[in-house]
């Protein structure tokens, strides 16, 4: 036993081991294991975060889809309403212009009638005076007062018949 065992080597080795244990703990195990733990936690966190993000994104997408659909429907409703309103305006304008045209036409007709009447009246007076003049010239000597009145009235009757 004496030759196999050396107490100095034994004591030195205990000291050596404690020293290397402390040093390796400080410079190797602690930093590397902490680093590995941190990385593991970070990866786990990233995975859960991305999972969460995906569900959130899906929810948002669903929301946007619903909003888009609602907006489309609303837009369609607005378009429909505007078209209807436009049609109404068109119809009312059309009716209004038709009335106006009819009124104008009526006025024009009345005006024409009046003008015609005026013209006829003027013509008749002209004809009477011309006839009187011509008759007077022809019958200057041989027509008496009675005859004169008789003729004029007869003529006027005839003219009235024309009229």
């Amino acid at each position: 036993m004496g030759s196999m065992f050396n107490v100095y080597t034994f004591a030195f080795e205990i000291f050596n081991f404690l020293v290397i244990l402390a040093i390796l703990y400080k410079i190797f195990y602690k930093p590397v294991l902490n680093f590995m733990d941190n990385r593991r936690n970070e990866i786990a966190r990233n995975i859960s975060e991305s999972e969460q993000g995906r569900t959130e994104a899906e929810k948002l997408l669903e929301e946007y889809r619903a909003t888009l659909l609602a907006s489309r429907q609303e837009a369609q409703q607005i378009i429909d309403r505007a078209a209807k309103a436009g049609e109404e305006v068109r119809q009312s304008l059309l009716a209004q212009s038709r009335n106006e045209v009819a009124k104008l036409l009526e006025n024009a007709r009345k005006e024409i009638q009046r003008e015609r009447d005026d013209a006829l009246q003027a013509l008749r007076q002209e004809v009477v005076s011309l006839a009187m003049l011509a008759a007077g010239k022809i019958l200057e000597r041989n027509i008496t007062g009675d005859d004169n009145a008789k003729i004029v009235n007869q003529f006027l009757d005839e003219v009235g018949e024309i009229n």
Partner: protein
Amino acid sequence: MEQGIPVFYIFSIPVYDYITTMWGIMAVLIVVGLIVSSNLQKVPGRFQMLAEYALGGLLNFFGGIMGPELARRYFPLLMTLFLVILFSNWSGLLPGSSGTLITGFHTPTGTWSVTAALAIIVFVSVHYIGIKEKGWHYFAHFFQPIFVLFPLNVIEELVKPLSLSLRLFGNIYGGEMVAMVLLGLFPLLTPIPMQILDILFCFIQALVFTTLTAVYISMATAESH
């Protein structure tokens, strides 16, 4: 020769070649640790990947033996034991590690003094952890299943460091002897397969020592039944 050769003296205390070799191994471990931890990347490079694989793999391995929480708490002790023993064993595969060719270079685990030191550290740690985890209730297990077995239980506890240290020392020392004998008989080529196998044996011995330590710790902290 098992005592080694004193390389120098500190106040007339001899420092043997086993210890100087161990200092070299410690320096290598510190350098490796510094290289890895000084440049930790989220996307690990090859070197960092290897270190993470070793650390993570052994953490899982010990976790399987003693539970993840205990393994994490006492991982530095187990990992340091593993690394020190592994590198010591592997240093024996380098040429000139017999202590006679190169002064101050002698496989540390090839002497009982070193393995006994490691086993005593395990012995003290196991009982310390047992008391720490379970309080004074820890000593109850010496009287179980019946108190008459107390002497046997004490002997069992004392045999643990002895078997731990002798197993490691015997394997490494024996391996060295075999390699030397083979080298003497058939110096050419024959020792090569032996050396290749030794790479594995050294790893297994380091793992056995550390695994047994983990088992002892888990036994010391187990709920009494």
